[in-house]
């Protein structure tokens, strides 16, 4: 009765996405993690705010109460989608590099250089910047991979260290080569008009980068699930030793997965520049890679769910921003909620709770059956 065949016959309404319980249950746990983190956020607001009801309302509903907030969410989704996709690829290969942070930041710096100095027609200009930023980002992405392959350096540790190095190098380039010295505040020279991405909706900041992000979601989905390279990435993620035994060159796969992931980060950084700004004015690294970790985890490493989880994170950010501007709760409180989400989703015992319980029950039932049959046979 409890065997798998019957279950697979009636996947239910969610069968469109989930073919069996093994996929459905973790998805429910993911939903639980998201909702739970929001509830924890409300709890925190009540703990620290002098007008908690108003703040909680602004946090949870604020993103939908104003039309411009809806556009903000869509804008915020763009960088989150890129870093989320980049980390999906890294996680699929069971690696943990956070170098995408550098790729994104240096990607933005590269795009700034192209945006200021290259003379290209509109349309081609941002495209060239994306390509340049992606390539630079990809090569940066290779560094932890090389350190790992050649010197067995833990890629997370080396990437975190490199993130500091590249942050300082990036701000050095801006300050010494691209800075607008007529400005009192720190700013690069202004971008050329041709570099700026067109707006999708007049009088909003929603830019064409949103569509580019959508295209990349499809591209990365196809790459991971419909190409040989994607298959190889998932294969070394599933079992690296087996993949090596089956004749795969594991170092090669690690290298190109890191390159592609860095490329996505670089493109994301370029789009952020061309879409939102008229010059490079970041005083610090926005560190979207850390958010990318959560996006990838909420999407369960699957690119096709990245837009959904990027939307959720954008919702949280816009809500927290809206709330902090109108109340006494600091924007940074969402990092507590984001940390909570990772903690829940990283815990195998929580994610696989139902599956473990089901397996246990089946095992117990089987044992009881066998015992009954054994007792019957003895009589």
């Amino acid at each position: 009765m409890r065997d798998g065949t019957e279950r697979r016959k009636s996947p239910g309404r969610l069968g469109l996405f989930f073919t069996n319980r093994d996929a459905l249950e973790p998805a429910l746990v993911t939903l639980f993690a998201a909702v739970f983190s929001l509830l924890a956020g409300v709890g925190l607001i009540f703990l620290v705010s002098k007008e908690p009801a108003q703040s909680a309302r602004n946090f949870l509903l604020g993103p939908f109460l104003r039309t411009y907030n809806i556009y903000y969410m869509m804008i915020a989704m763009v960088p989150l989608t890129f870093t989320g996709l980049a980390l999906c690829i890294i996680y699929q290969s069971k690696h943990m590099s956070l170098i995408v942070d550098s790729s994104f930041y240096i990607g933005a710096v590269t795009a700034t250089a192209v945006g200021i100095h290259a003379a290209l027609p509109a349309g081609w200009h941002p495209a060239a910047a994306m390509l340049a930023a992606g390539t630079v980002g990809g090569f940066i992405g290779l560094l932890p991979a090389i350190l790992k392959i050649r010197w067995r350096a833990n890629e997370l540790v080396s990437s975190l260290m490199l993130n500091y190095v590249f942050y300082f190098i990036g701000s050095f380039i801006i300050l010494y080569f691209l800075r607008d010295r007529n400005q009192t505040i720190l700013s690069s020279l202004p971008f050329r008009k041709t570099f700026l991405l067109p707006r999708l909706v007049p009088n909003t900041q929603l830019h064409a980068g949103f569509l580019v992000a959508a295209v990349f979601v499809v591209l990365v989905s196809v790459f991971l699930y419909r190409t040989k390279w994607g298959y190889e990435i998932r294969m070394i993620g599933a079992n690296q030793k087996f993949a090596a035994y089956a004749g795969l060159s594991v170092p090669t796969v690690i290298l190109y997965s890191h390159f592609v992931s860095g490329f996505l980060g670089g493109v994301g950084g370029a789009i952020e520049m061309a879409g939102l700004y008229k010059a490079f004015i970041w005083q610090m690294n926005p560190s979207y890679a850390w958010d990318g970790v959560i996006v990838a985890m909420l999407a369960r490493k699957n690119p096709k769910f990245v837009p959904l989880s990027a939307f959720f994170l954008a919702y949280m950010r816009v809500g927290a921003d809206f709330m902090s501007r109108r109340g006494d709760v600091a924007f940074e409180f969402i990092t507590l909620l984001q940390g909570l989400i990772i903690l829940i989703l990283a815990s195998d015992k929580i994610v696989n709770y139902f599956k473990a319980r089901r397996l246990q029950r089946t095992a117990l039932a089987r044992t009881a059956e066998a015992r009954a049959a054994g007792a019957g046979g003895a009589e």
Partner: protein
Amino acid sequence: MMDFLASVFGSSNYWFIVVRSTAPILLVTLGAVVTEQAGIKNMALEGSMLWAALTGVLASAWTGSPWIGLAAGIAAGVAIALILGLFALKLDANAVLVGIALNLLSTGGTVFVLFSITGDKGISSSLPSKVLPMVSVPLLRDIPWLGKVLSGQNLVVYLSAAAVVVIHVILNKMTIGRRIRATGENVEAARAAGIDPDRIKFFTLVISGILAGLAGCFLSMGYTSNFTSGISAGRGYVANAAQVVAGGTAVGSIFAALIFGVTDALATFLQSRGLPPELIQALPYAVTILGFVVVTLIRDKREAARKLKLFAGKDDR
């Protein structure tokens, strides 16, 4: 430039700063060494430091005592390490991911708490927090050049030196040390030998929490006299790289931490020479990676030589 460098390396003032900036790295590196020996990666050292730095400042401001601040800070450092243990060991979470989560939560969380209490997101200067005392060492201070370097440092600097000895003794001279290494080497074998691996891992996490807590308190109550956002500046991550350079030993940690300390202090001096501060600030992190690569190269070479000898020995028979 060479003259300048020579004058820097000759000055007791420079080496005083080297010792001072080495101490916090040394403490966290020891923490990373201990947990790594037990086979668990504590990526949350950064988070432990941040919460310890903030808690130390808050507790010392409220009670007026730097000691209560220190105790509270260390407790906060341990708490973060224990959360890592809870998720990684009891809920089967990937320890590295838990570390990422805790660091993310700590970078923003400390700012959130600071803002909720003081209304300022950057610095805790509105709080009357205390600092830990400087210690003038009686005999040491009378030695001509060395006295100026080693005496008059913050109490935590001397504690970090003591910590090297303590960790060395724990790892090499005590039963628990053998158990730690056994657990790190092979969990199943350790369990078969009657060791509870989870208990050992929790024990090392507590130690690393204490050490990171001490380091965090030093940053906000000695190295500087305030908590500022992101005060740990990646030292927790550096520790995880330095741990490899240290080769998993307490004594090696001194060497590994010094690499960072020497460049970090040099950066302070070079900045006064008008070199671009951005590139100089990147130096300590870049040098740490470099040290890491060099040490692995040397170790690989030694390993190869050892294997070669082994084969040669077989031929003789």
